[in-house]
């Protein structure tokens, strides 16, 4: 028995050494890859949102020279100097990107998939050559780089429509490209728990004082002028279509495409309006009524006839102009031809 065992042990040893030697190149590679993964994980944990900030050098290390890779990168191309251009929505998309990143990280913590995908960003001013490498010349731009991809230019670009619905659609894009799950997007509540608690405590504490004041009857609530101002403001706010601007996220005005120094304040077509336009017309709507009320309620109490006359002429002029302006604007905007129905013999 013992004789027969020995060769088998030898055989095993031999097999082992062969195996080991054949594995060495893989091992060496996998070590460097795992190093990079470890470093990426480290960088990720240091960043607040989980998005790793890269520049030309680090991108080269993690992407171009580090081949082959076991992970894919989702790169957000950022440019700080364009943040104030609202029509690009860079800031919003960036924050949504952060949200997707943090969701992914928290959802995949301590699972193998946490080292499969990393969220990175590049700043244009620091890493222009990387922008050139990816041939990025328009923003917003998000790219997904597969482990297999050799040339960065071949990587998949996230479509406009994929970040149209914000974080949810970005997550869909990521899931379809990587076959990883991002997890349910959880937006941070507008008011944090501490703030909410504080508000509740403050409310509870202040209730007795408020009730006392109410019973004594010396609060702002009893001042009808406050109520008056408030109701007129709500009226102005609503008729100016401000709610439309909020819901549709309309800008106050548009810059002319051909000549950026020119602004469009009025948009033709009744389905849409711009912010400034709404407020202008809302103001015209309100001013006529306010003037009428001023004349009929306050001006009648003035004893000086000249003052009365002058103010009335002013009020009449302004009201007439406002109504005319609104009628003109309405006809221009909607294109309706409002006309009377006169007897045909009059024509």
């Amino acid at each position: 028995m013992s004789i027969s065992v020995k060769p088998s042990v030898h055989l095993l040893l031999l097999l082992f050494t062969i195996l080991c030697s054949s594995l060495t190149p893989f091992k060496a590679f996998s070590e460097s890859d795992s190093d990079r993964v470890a470093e990426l994980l480290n960088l990720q944990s240091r960043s607040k949102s989980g998005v790793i900030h890269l520049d030309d050098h680090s991108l080269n290390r993690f992407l171009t020279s580090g081949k082959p890779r076991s992970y894919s990168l989702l790169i957000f191309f950022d440019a700080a100097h364009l943040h104030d251009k609202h029509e690009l929505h860079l800031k919003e998309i960036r924050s949504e990107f952060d949200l997707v990143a943090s969701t992914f990280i928290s959802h995949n913590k301590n699972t193998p998939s946490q080292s499969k995908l990393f969220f990175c960003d590049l700043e244009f001013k620091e890493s222009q050559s990387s922008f050139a490498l990816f041939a990025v010349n328009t923003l917003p731009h998000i790219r997904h780089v597969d482990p297999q991809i050799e040339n960065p230019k071949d990587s998949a670009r996230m479509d406009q429509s994929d970040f149209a619905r914000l974080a949810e659609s970005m997550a869909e894009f990521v899931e379809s490209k990587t076959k990883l799950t991002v997890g349910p997007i959880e937006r941070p509540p507008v008011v944090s728990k501490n703030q909410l608690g504080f508000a509740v405590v403050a409310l509870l504490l202040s209730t007795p004082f408020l009730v006392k004041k109410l019973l004594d009857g010396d609060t702002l609530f009893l001042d009808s002028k406050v109520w008056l101002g408030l109701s007129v403001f709500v009226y102005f706010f609503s008729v100016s279509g401000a709610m439309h601007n909020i819901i549709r996220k309309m800008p106050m005005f548009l810059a002319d495409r051909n000549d950026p120094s020119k602004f469009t304040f009025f948009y033709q077509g009744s389905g849409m309006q711009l912010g400034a336009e709404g407020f202008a017309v809302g103001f015209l709507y309100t001013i006529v009524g306010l003037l009428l009320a001023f004349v009929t309620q306050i001006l009648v109490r003035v004893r000086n006839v000249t003052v009365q006359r002058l103010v009335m002429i002013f009020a009449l002029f302004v009201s007439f102009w406002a109504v005319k302006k609104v009628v003109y604007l309405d006809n221009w905007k909607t294109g309706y031809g409002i006309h009377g129905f006169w007897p045909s013999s009059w024509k």
Partner: protein
Amino acid sequence: MATLENGKGTTLRYAVGNMLSIFILLLIGVLAFSIRLFSVIKYESVIHEFDPYFNYRVTQILIVSSAINHILKSLNYDLSKHYRGLVAYLLFQFLTKNGIYDFWNWFDDRTWYPLGRVIGGTVYPGLTLTAGSLWRILNSLNIPLSVETVCVFTAPIFSANAAWATYLLTKEVKGTGAGLMAAALLAMVPSYISRSVAGSYDNEAVAIFALIFTFYLYIKTLNTGSLFYATLNALSYFYMVCSWGGYTFIINLIPMHVLLCIVTGRYSSRLYIAYAPLVVLGTLLASLVPVVGFNAVMTSEHFASFLLMVLHMQVFIIIHVVALVYYIKGILSPKMFKVAVTLVVSVGMVVCCAVIAVLAALVASSPTKGWSGRSLSLLDPTYASKYIPIIASVSEHQPPTWPSYFMDINVLAFLVPAGIIACFLPLSDASSFVVLYIVTSVYFSGVMVRLMLVFAPAACILSGIALSEAFDVFTRSIKFQLPGVSGVSHSGAEDTTTGDVVIQNDIVKADKHSSTYKKEDALKERPSKKNRKKEREHLEKASIKTQIEKRLLVLPLEASVISILLLVLLGAFYVVHCVWAAAEAYSAPSIVLTSYSHDGLHVFDDFREAYAWLRHNTEVDDKVASWWDYGYQTTAMANRTVIVDNNTWNNTHIATVGTAMSSPEKAAWEIFNSLDVKYVLVVFGGLVGYSSDDINKFLWMVRIGGGVFPHIKEPDYLRDGQYRIDSEATSTMLNSLMYKLSYYRFVEVDGKGFDRVRRTEIGKKYFKLTHFEEVFTTHHWMVRIYKLKSMKNRIRGKTKKSKSSSKATTTASSKRGGRRKKNPWY
């Protein structure tokens, strides 16, 4: 001021004034009715729009079932001839009841196939019951009108009622003059016209009347403190609940007003009487309506129901606490009172907190956390547009832009602020209610264009007040300063002016008489009213004072004349606009379309053509699939079963149809076949330029479909975020069923396939349909009907099998063959 005049003159003046206002009200009623008849005169007496068809069907069922019962029962009861009169009366009562019960239990299998729909529990019965009773009354008076005629004219009749209700409401707030003005404005406000032209047989037409009338009764109770009006108020609220989901607006607004009154220190026993019975009786009555049931108090599927519950409970408790406080104040010494107040307030607050906690727990335990989509879209305006395509897709739920206000309330938009200010000077319970009404309704109308309808009456009331105050001041200025008039007498001055102004002056006259009434009202509000005689003396003194003051409060003569002229001009512009809106914008029945071109008028009656074709050429039990917009019409006019209709209660079912429309032919065929659909109906406007066709609605089908079936993705149908149907369109788009059914053989028309709505040539011109066959296309191609091809081969295989049953081997082979060729088209 009237008390100064000698008795006879005063009564005569009052009589003349009353007669005149009655006459004016009659004219206003005629105006309200007749301005809505354009649709009948210009087109014909048909019911238009989509929703009204459903209401019409319901009314028909209601009347038919009760008529059948009538015949059956009268046969039975005919034996008892002795008591015929009594029996007939009882019978009538019994019948009405029976009709209603049949109606409650009606299960509609003509729609939402294969689910069907319980009608009784899911519709607001107010409108149908109203029209049904109207029809029955007319018939009992031997006026044999058809059901449809009654339905067509219900809305105009009720808008006249609404105008009168507005008069009553505004009269309670600011007197007769403002009332008449407001009624005249409401009679022709375009926003209301849009929902109540003859033929638009819609819930809102009746509901707006109910809304205004309920508010009137509330204010009347508030002014008089009479329990009689409080009860009437609850009944009127019940009618409102029967008619429209907008009742939640009332039941939220009134507690808010009560709260406001308490907070601003305006509590009175009248407030208690106006509020408490309404809540108790009204909620009990509301829960009798099946569609509302206990939703009125408990469920979370209602618009702002959370607010409603909290408001109700809280306000209900608070008003009782406050009532107790006032009661205690009356019977205790000041010191004791302080102690008692602390006690009551602290106990009240504890109870309040407990109730809130319980409610919060209840709401939190419900699946939607107490919020339904519609309510959220009001509180967080951006909610619906982000998350619920089926709400966001409806144009009524869009936020309006400023031209919508000009279109819907026109120059009233200018006058409302003046009305608000007039209501604050002086602020009474009634006027504070009106202000609250306008502020809340204007906010909500800003969120959803549909709620403009609730805002319009408020705008009319406040503009009426503003105009009447303005005319009051200006005519007074003219009257007291006209050369030759000393200013003591009250007659003469008006006679010189034109007819238009005479009416205005009468309004002013009436207003003046009511201003004394107002004063009375203001005095009434003082909590201590023990000595009525003294008060009356005060009042008389006050009225003398106001008269002297009023004579001093004048504006320069010529400026006043110009102002009046401008105001009349403004009013004239309003009338022109309203008549135009009624005649041109809102009177076109969407079932018959017209267009003017250089060679005259074109009438597109394609919808009815298509529905008639379906009615005459298909089997009674065939199922027709179309987008939900056309569901009610198809069931009512073609009498065929539909898969989805305008009552969008089941999102998944609608998404199924949306998915089928957005899928390629084969997948769509499978979906439709699984629903037993025989015919598919699409609306196509590309030939004549009808822009609200299915291709334009298609993205919503994709969105709604994709919301439930994730394999439908909106980006697949868009090229670079743009919706296009030309050669640049995506292949998913060009292969979708909707594209194919719309553009099938379209190129044969002009050889190019030019779509006049999208203003482009279509992308895919020559293609064949594999799973569908065209069976009917209307005159202008606006409606195209396709039939699902049946699975011919399989059937042939089966028949072969049955024929060659003797030869087992051949059967087996043919079977195999059949299996191999399971789908003959691929």
